[in-house]
């Protein structure tokens, strides 16, 4: 009896020890997890305070007290870090010991309290029924696994193997050095499956493509300045300065009634890029989240001569970047050198096609780290394709060989993200490539990418491209300022103004005047050299398109699709206001006697 009582009290004691240990273990577990989370979050060497102090020390390196403060903080942070580590480890040991105590107590209690086994009740479920249920469960599990596998395949399948094989073949042909030019795929004389097969001759019935535009052209060459000015080769025309050299441009039309509308063609996919023109062909792009296309349209008939789906480009990301609706997936305007056309999309896909729509090369530059979506347009300098790629953390401008896509030069830029497009100017002494991005307007030699000059005069999320006329570059951005910069090896600010600041439309300059348009529809004219404001107007409609000068008149399209045409003069003289019949956000392109305007859905040819 005494033995039984003693055994019972021992059991009780062991149970209590086990319970106490269990509570201790639970508390320890919580503490370890909390400590672990702290440890994960802590980065003693990169704490904000420390970084700020170090930056301050860089600015003032002789500050001994600051130096000492940094040392002490650093030591403190490290101590805290290693103490945390020690606590986690020690907690682990204690947890182990407490668990061991629980196990020992429980096992000992079990040994002291032998119980007789129960005989299960006889009414077990039918043996055959159980077997049947087992079979069904195994079948269901199998089906579940198969469906799950196929679902995973559906969600993750990306033809990785084929892409790698293609890339291996492509890169072994070019064999770039490790880390450079990784994603280029050149296909001289051949058309890869994915793209070539899709090279549709849309609406080909009864339509003969105009004569071979490549006939008699040296594919290795590049157009003369005269040829470039005779066409409309990039965003805002030749050089991107907003000046069109074409004549007999219509000044009045009505999209609804069809007055002076020569043709109107629906563009399959949306895009905010502007059309470009080479001879009798108009080129533009369209894209949705899942599809990217390049279109070639006959200038005379408006027929789509070919459309090319851009896909399966090595390195092209599986997921499209996030863009805002005002930018879309194909905001950058194409460019051409008369041999090939070039297009870039929001995901960094870059493609070069000949004028018949055959792929020459493709490349992916990596998703532009850009919270609105990439919008910087392409431009040509001789046979070099210039790309402004100012993205978060890695601003750069590069030139690719138009024929092969190889990087000819690349210049890194310490700038923030920019949505502006590059502009090429001819000063008389030299040709310069002008770029705008926070914090500077900078000039580069387009032949080798070397910086010629820079001036810090612009801030914020730069959208407008620069304007240029008569040795002066004009840069503007919203919440920043309008600056007139007299260029040269040591550029200087001629004047500044903060009244009319644009965040999307680019300014337009002539030797005498500067026209600034804001996206909310205000318009101002300045004296180009002094900054004196001649006049200001409210259009009453938001405006995203940039103004273009043609035959002494400024053509400015507002978002409702009304083209405001006024004289490039000291006084605001309206020539006409012509409605397109649908909204537009794109800058028009000009050909002899014609204007090509991209509306929200259609491409219009205005001509007499």
């Amino acid at each position, binding site marked *: 009896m005494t033995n039984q009582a003693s055994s019972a009290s021992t059991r009780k004691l062991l149970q209590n020890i086990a319970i106490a240990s269990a509570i201790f273990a639970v508390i320890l*577990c919580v503490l370890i*997890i909390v400590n*672990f989370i702290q440890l*994960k979050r802590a980065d003693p060497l990169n704490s904000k305070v420390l970084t700020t102090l170090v930056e301050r020390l860089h600015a003032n390196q002789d500050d001994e007290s600051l130096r000492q403060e940094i040392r002490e903080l650093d030591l403190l942070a490290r101590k805290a870090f290693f103490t945390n580590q020690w606590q986690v*480890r020690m907690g*682990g*040991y204690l947890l*182990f010991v407490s*668990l061991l105590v629980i*196990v020992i107590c429980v096992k000992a209690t079990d040994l002291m309290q032998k119980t007789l*086994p*129960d*005989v*299960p009740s006889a009414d077990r479920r039918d*043996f*055959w029924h*159980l*077997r049947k249920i*087992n*079979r069904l*469960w*195994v*079948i269901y*599990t*199998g089906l579940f*696994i*198969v469906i799950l*596998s*196929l679902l*995973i*395949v559906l969600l*993750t*399948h990306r*033809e*990785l*193997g084929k*892409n*790698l*094989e293609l*890339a*291996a073949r492509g*890169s*072994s042909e070019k*064999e*770039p*050095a*490790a*880390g450079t030019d*990784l994603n280029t795929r050149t296909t001289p004389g051949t058309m890869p499956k994915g793209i070539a097969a899709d090279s549709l001759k849309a609406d080909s019935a009864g339509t003969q493509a105009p004569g071979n535009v490549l006939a008699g052209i040296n594919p290795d060459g590049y157009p003369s300045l005269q040829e470039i000015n005779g066409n409309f080769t990039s965003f805002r025309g030749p050089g991107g300065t907003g000046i069109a050299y074409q004549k007999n441009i219509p000044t009045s039309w009505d999209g609804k009634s069809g007055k002076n509308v020569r043709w109107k063609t629906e563009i399959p996919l949306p895009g905010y890029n502007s059309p470009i023109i080479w001879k009798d062909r108009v080129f533009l792009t369209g894209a949705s989240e899942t599809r990217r296309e390049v279109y070639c349209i006959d200038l005379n008939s408006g027929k789509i001569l070919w459309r090319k789906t851009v896909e399966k480009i*090595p*390195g*092209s*990301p*599986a997921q499209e*970047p996030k863009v805002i609706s005002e930018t879309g997936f194909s905001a950058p305007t194409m460019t051409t050198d008369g041999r090939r056309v070039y297009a870039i999309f929001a995901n*960094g896909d870059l493609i070069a096609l000949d004028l018949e729509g055959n792929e020459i090369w493709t490349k992916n530059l*990596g*998703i532009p*780290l850009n919270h609105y979506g990439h919008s910087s347009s392409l431009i040509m300098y001789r046979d070099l394709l210039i790309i402004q790629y100012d993205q*978060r953390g890695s601003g750069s401008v590069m030139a690719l060989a138009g024929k092969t896509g190889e990087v000819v030069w690349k210049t890194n830029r310490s700038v923030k993200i920019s949505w502006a497009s590059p502009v090429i100017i001819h000063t008389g002494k030299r040709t310069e490539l002008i770029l705008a991005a926070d914090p500077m307007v900078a000039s580069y030699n387009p032949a080798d990418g070397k910086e010629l000059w820079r001036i810090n005069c612009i801030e914020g999320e730069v959208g407008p491209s620069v304007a240029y006329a008569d040795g002066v570059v004009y840069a503007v951005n919203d919440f920043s300022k309008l600056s007139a910069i007299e260029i040269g090896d040591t550029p200087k600010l001629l004047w500044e103004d903060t009244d009319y600041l644009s965040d999307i439309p680019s300014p337009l300059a002539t030797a005498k005047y500067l026209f600034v348009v804001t996206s909310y529809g205000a318009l101002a004219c300045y004296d180009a050299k002094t900054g004196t404001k001649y006049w200001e107007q409210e259009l009453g409609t938001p405006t995203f398109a940039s103004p273009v000068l043609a035959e002494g008149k400024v053509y400015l399209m507002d978002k409702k699709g009304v083209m405001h045409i006024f004289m490039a003069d000291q006084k605001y003289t309206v020539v006409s206001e012509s409605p397109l019949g649908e909204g537009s956000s794109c800058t028009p392109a000009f050909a002899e006697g014609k204007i090509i305007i991209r509306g929200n859905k259609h491409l219009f040819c205005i001509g007499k």
Partner: protein
Amino acid sequence: MKKNAVLLILILVLTIQLLNVYGVQRFPKPEFESGYVQPDTLQPDTRAELLAIMDIVVLTVALAVISWLVLKKRSRIGVFCTSVLSLVYFGFYREGCVCSIGAIQNITLAMFDENYVIPLTVIAFFVIPLIFTLFFGRTFCAGVCPFGAIQDLVSYKPQKLGTRLNAVLGLIPYLYLGLSILYAATGTDFIICRYDPFVGIFRFDASFGMFLFAGILLVSGIFIARPYCRFLCPYGVLLNFISRFSWRHMTITPAACIKCRLCEDSCPYDAIDMPVPGKNPEDRAITLRKLILICLLVPFFVLLGGYSTSRLHETLAGVNGKVHLAKSLLEPTTNNGQPETFEITAFKSSGKPVSQVFSEASAVIRQFYIGSWILGCFIGLVFGIILARQLIIAYQADYTPNKGTCFSCMRCVDYCPVTPEEVKS
């Protein structure tokens, strides 16, 4: 004399420990300014050769002892004590490596990669338990495997899961085995080691994820006996198969079963085969039809498994280092806007041609294509066999341990009222 002998043994043991000094990593790991963090190693420090041989000897002796305890002594206490000792030696002292479970991968890699030299210890740890199983059933699981031992230790109120859950969850080890072989054969990774829940506990350096995993297994192990052994262990698949052909296997009763039913609920692993009613069996014609159906369905399962898994080959290959690097090079922006990965930085400084990376990755993906067909066929076959097994009934009159799934833990023996002494008398 006795005192001197103890002293001598102590000195000998301590001297042997000094051998480890020769084996350990003598240079500290470098620290990188770039912030690169050395990945956790899957293996503990190198072990001296003599100690490695000692491990093999200890394993063999432990298996011999436990087989004797199971088959001759029929002692649950003996099995329990051996398992505690094994836990201390193979678990905490040997830090869970080399283990027989992980050795599957070394053996596989050695078969597919001629440049891989497999250590003798690994072969021994893989083969010796299999040999013992062939002779004496799964005595390795009973008390030599440290993974089983630690789970057995925490098993307090084990509940029966029911045949349905057992049937479904019991499929996981086959999947795990197939995947680990695929990854090892392609030189991708040793996933059994990487996702080993207990090794972090043995080494006191578990990552948070693995600590959590182990915690879940051990806590659930209080109520579900040996969850890892039953529903994950890939080595268990091999042992299960071999044990079915074992020369001798533990029995619940030392003599004829008296069908007292006392042992019926004693096995926490549901590894006791109940007497199968011989009367009123399922209609023979129906059973035959089902059997024919299964025979036809097995090839279908094999093909379906092969096809659906082969579609996954690119996803499965994504884990491979070469494929991962090539993918990063092809899609450099998938790094969530962060600067380029360390892999790309390292690659750039290597001077290796890009085409080589792409070609190698492409070759790996082809290997995965073939491998995932084989894996899928294997899984399909397993399903087919399990279904067929549900139809083929071996009638039996006694309560017997299932030779495949029984861990020989000897719990049921304690429930049997028939004792060896009574048999002798």
